[in-house]
């Protein structure tokens, strides 16, 4: 570059005074700017520190670290690796279209990545790929690490090999985050074929159904603490992970990476433990469920996967226990619909009568009751009476302000239309009982 372009660039960067550029982290770490060795100085040091070793294949080299964790020590709760294949009906609840081999936990490959950002896109790298599988009554963890961007090819080939050995991918939020990101990485190579897992079990979705109501958030560390009663202790903050790695790339010391390796190991252990907990809950919620909400969660999963029989059983169980009011209403509402679909109208009517009120579920219950009396019992007068009751309830809610005015108006209009129709129907069926509105003698 000519001296003049050099100057121009210098002038250009000097143009805007006040706003700071993102502070180059290398300065903080005391590394002279522009110091860029081809292999980080600390790489060997890192290998020694971690007990990792370079792994070589036809695409080059990367670092790999193996460690075995004994099963029962994974968490303080009594979690052990599943024995034998899991029941097919359980597998359907997790992944309805998964092939049979997914039921064999020996085929499972737990996966969790540490990345250079959360936004995705082709410039985000997975610099640490953590893998784990059940082995000898415990969990074998293997971590693949990029000491340099140029080692990515060899890392991806290693991942493909592991996935060929155990083709069922098990993740936490991997369907949305980790796996699409790895797909991008494979495509960026233009040479290494994208491996195709036989199945992908993502435990985020069941975790949401089971625990969001209790915990508000379903972050893995949160679940470990509250569901598995396991406290991680000190852990690196996820937001700092990319910059710690960038510091290392720029020649920083390797020691700050160690907490990231540990974090990734804990994520894998937590995931494996969580998977066990979800499986045992799904298998026997009545025995395994710690509270009514967990049982309710299982019923929701069963309902979503179309297992109506089990869904009804566990909903009944959860309402018999002590659910918080909102969950109780939701459970009874679902239960009533399942009962109706199953032809058990008396149970449905019973539930609707219990629900009827000015809540959303309550108004829906009135509506369901009206439909039931009109079409199933063929008693339009009774249906009309239910609707009048609903309208009275709405008037009260409007007066007390317990329902938003717009919602109030909407429901009111719906019920009034229904009532008008019912009144006409009653008039046609029983002209002599016409409510005195100008029926000619």
């Amino acid at each position, binding site marked *: *570059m*000519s001296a*003049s*372009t*050099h100057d*121009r*660039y210098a*002038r*250009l960067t*000097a*143009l*805007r*005074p*006040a*706003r700071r*550029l*993102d*502070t*180059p*982290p*290398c300065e903080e770490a005391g590394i002279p*700017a*522009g110091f*860029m060795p*081809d292999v980080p100085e600390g790489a060997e040091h890192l290998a020694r520190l971690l007990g990792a070793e370079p792994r070589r294949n036809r695409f080059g080299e990367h670092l790999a670290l193996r460690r075995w964790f004994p099963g029962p020590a994974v968490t303080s709760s009594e979690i052990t690796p599943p024995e034998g294949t899991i029941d097919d009906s359980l597998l359907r609840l997790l992944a309805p279209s998964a092939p049979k081999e997914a039921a064999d936990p020996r085929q499972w490959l737990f996966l969790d990545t540490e990345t*250079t*950002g*959360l*936004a*995705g*896109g*082709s*410039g*985000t*790298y997975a610099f640490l790929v953590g893998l784990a599988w059940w082995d000898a009554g415990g969990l074998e963890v293997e971590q693949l690490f990029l000491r*340099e*961007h*140029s080692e990515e090819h060899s890392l991806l080939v290693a991942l493909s090999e592991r996935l060929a050995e155990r083709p069922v991918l098990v993740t936490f939020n991997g369907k949305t985050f980790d796996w699409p990101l790895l*797909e*991008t990485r494979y*495509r*960026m190579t*233009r040479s290494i074929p994208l491996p195709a897992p036989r199945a992908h079990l993502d435990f985020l979705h069941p975790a949401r159904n089971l625990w969001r109501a209790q915990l508000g958030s379903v972050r893995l560390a949160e679940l470990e603490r509250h569901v598995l009663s396991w406290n991680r202790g000190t852990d690196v903050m996820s937001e700092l992970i*990319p*910059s710690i790695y*960038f510091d290392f*790339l*720029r020649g920083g010391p390797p020691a700050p990476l160690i907490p990231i390796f540990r974090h990734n190991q804990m994520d894998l252990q937590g995931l494996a433990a969580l998977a066990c907990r979800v499986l045992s809950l799904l298998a026997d919620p009545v025995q395994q469920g710690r509270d009514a909400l967990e049982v309710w969660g299982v019923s929701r999963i069963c309902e979503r996967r179309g297992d109506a029989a089990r869904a009804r059983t566990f909903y009944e169980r959860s309402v018999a226990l002590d659910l918080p009011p909102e969950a109780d209403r939701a459970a009874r509402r679902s239960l009533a619909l399942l009962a109706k679909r199953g032809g058990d109208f008396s149970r449905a009517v019973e539930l609707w009568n219990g629900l009827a009120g000015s809540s959303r579920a309550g108004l829906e219950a009135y509506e369901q009751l009206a439909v039931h009396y009109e079409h199933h019992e063929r008693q339009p007068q009774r249906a009309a009476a239910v609707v009048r009751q609903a309208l009275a309830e709405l008037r009260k809610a409007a007066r007390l302000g317990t329902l938003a005015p717009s919602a109030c108006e909407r429901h009111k209009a719906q019920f009034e239309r229904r009532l008008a129709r019912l009144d006409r129907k009653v008039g046609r069926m029983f002209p002599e009982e016409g409510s005195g509105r100008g029926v000619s003698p």
Partner: protein
Amino acid sequence: MAPSAQGLAVKEKSTLDTVQDALTALAGRYRTDEVLTSVKHIPALEAQYRPMPSWVHPDLAEAYRARGIEKLYSHQAAAADMAHEGKNVVVVTPTASGKTLCYNLPVLNAVLEDPDTRALYLFPTKALAQDQLAELHEMAQRLGDCFGTFTYDGDTPADAREAIRERGHVILTNPDMLHTGILPHHTKWMRLFENLRYIVMDELHTYRGVFGSHLANVLRRLARIADFYGSKPQFICSSATIANPAELARRLTEREVATVEESGAPAAEKVFVFYNPPVVNRNLGIRRSCLNESARVAKELLSRKLQTIVFANSRLHTEVLLTYLQQTNPPAAGGPQPIRGYRGGYLPGERREIERGLREGRVRGVVATNALELGIDIGSLDACVMAGYAGSIASTWQRAGRAGRRSGTSCAILVASSSPLDQYIVQHPDYFFGRSAEQACIQPDNLEILVNHLKCAAFELPIGPREQFGSADIQELCARLAEAGYLHRSGESWHWVQDAYPADTVSLRSVSSDNFVIVNTRGGDVSNPEVIGEVDFSSALTTVHPKAIYLHQGQQYHVDRLDFDQRKAYVRPVDTDYYTDAVRYTQVRVLDPAEEERIAGPAVRAHGDVLVRSQVIGFKKIKFFTNENVGDGKLELPENEMHTTAFWITLERGLLDSLPFPLSDRQSGIFGLLHALESMAALLLMCDRRDIGTAVGERPGGASSEAAWQDAPAAIRNPSEMQEFFEPNLYLYDAYPGGIGFSEPLFRACELLLRKTRELIEGCPCESGCPSCVGPAGEKSERVKEAALAILACLCAQRDEAQETSRLRRRG
């Protein structure tokens, strides 16, 4: 003559007559040639046809035949042939000449021949993409749905995106979405990029200045990614008529591009009228208001049952005109409102209803902003009234084209405002109707813009050791980006090492991402502040300084506080009868002249790199309409330095000595001339006045400048103390850091610029200077206009004199 034919003839004649009647009614009271500066009758043009090319797939030919297209206009055939041969091509045609077929024909033909073929269409706005989508859907239906076509923009629902990536043969999008949504996620678009054969760019002339310079870099990124996936797409572009379509296309795409300029489309008969509101104060050069006169014109047309569209240049003006026209054209008892407004901010349903009303004739008149300029189908109206010049010839024709798109006589009336551009246009119809002199300029190698896109490029694909990206030495730039913590070198390539996403922070509409946010506090209700806009760093100090009146969508806001560090301006809505004009002291220092040449005068024209130092030291309050100065204030704001490019003219001592004026008149003449030069430069470059800065400085403007800088603010406040320039430089600089490509074209067009400026000042009927020519009278001397013209006379002296002089210096 058969009765029916006679009836038709009578009707044809009466449209022309009706317009004539309306014009007589409007201008009868005044000296007609002063008000109607041009009444141009444009006769109908016959179509030039060519047969459907033999290479067109029979199914495609059949599909077009079913739409009533059996043969092509000559330019369609020429463009499609070139595209089919594999050339990059730009079609330059008037509105409604069937340009979409120029690209749809070769693209769909390629898709029919190889169903893997993919094409990417870029439109400057979402509305245009929607319009094209309808046409492509119709073609897809006729072709048995053998190809998929989708728009992909910010409105595309997330769950539809995957299907679009897999199944879309033709993807319609805009540059911003390509920049932030597609390129950074190219692995998801593998099928598109592996098979990308065509890139279609419509309305190419809109990609100029900052936006165009960004787009050129986005296309560089696109080319890298296409190359990565092994495709080499070909460009098919269309542009409105400008002076340099081929050059623009070449600079944007960095490929050789062939042009097709002869339109074979038929055109209907049209009357194009320039209406200059009558002068009410000859001394101050004040004319009747453009808005009121536009309303009068529209009223005359509407009262003669001509369906009329009225264009205004701002939302506020739209509302004013609408109110007026609705009052004078009340709906029939119980009938629908015959006059409607149409602008951004109306709901889509409302817009569709108005469009339908126009097509069906229920709506008799519509007042619109440029929201209706492009693409939207409203059928053919009888008349178009433009309240003020649209800023470029291309968009003026586009607006005029909304009346009489296909057949029948129509009329377009441009009502001039008192701005220099408007006045120049209506007083020099030849400039408008002759060969276009408008240049679309870009500077893709603007370092700040280029570096931003280099970051995006590194995020998309690591940057290899032998890569090219514009003219910059990118290895050096990458090393600097690595120092700043953005990139890391591994192996031979540079990789992105930030967790942020670079495209998100780069807007294609401004040079740097360092913007000031305008916060509306609603007069103290700080609990609920609202961000109403952004201004970029370079214009913030002049537009949102404390006590400034900031205009946003026709509403005035008073700037209560400027938080320089947080980059925020706090404003509240007000209703005042004045606006503010920042008093800025600007000093330009030449860093590196690229070319210098002596011209008549004696004078020198030059362009090159400059350093602009400026400080806002105060402001004036200017009353609307009369432009009176009604007060001023002092400001203490930080000074600002900018490295950019400039074009300048040096007036040598000999020239100044030859002028028969005292010092103060000479100085006023210099500033007046610069004001007029700026207007004409904006005209030639199709840019906003804000895009160009002006300054006067001493040649050589070097070492002594630090002292001069310190004294200058005082001198500005008291012009009589201003020292005399020995040999002044008149600078027109690009108002963006790094320059945006205006300076060299101005240097080349110097002679044209001077001639146009002379025509502007000479043609202005004011006595001694007005805002339409040399700037508002008042502070300047009475002979400012005279002096400016005298300088111009020297500069425009015989060309042969200039030719004797030789080029001083030329740098590659």
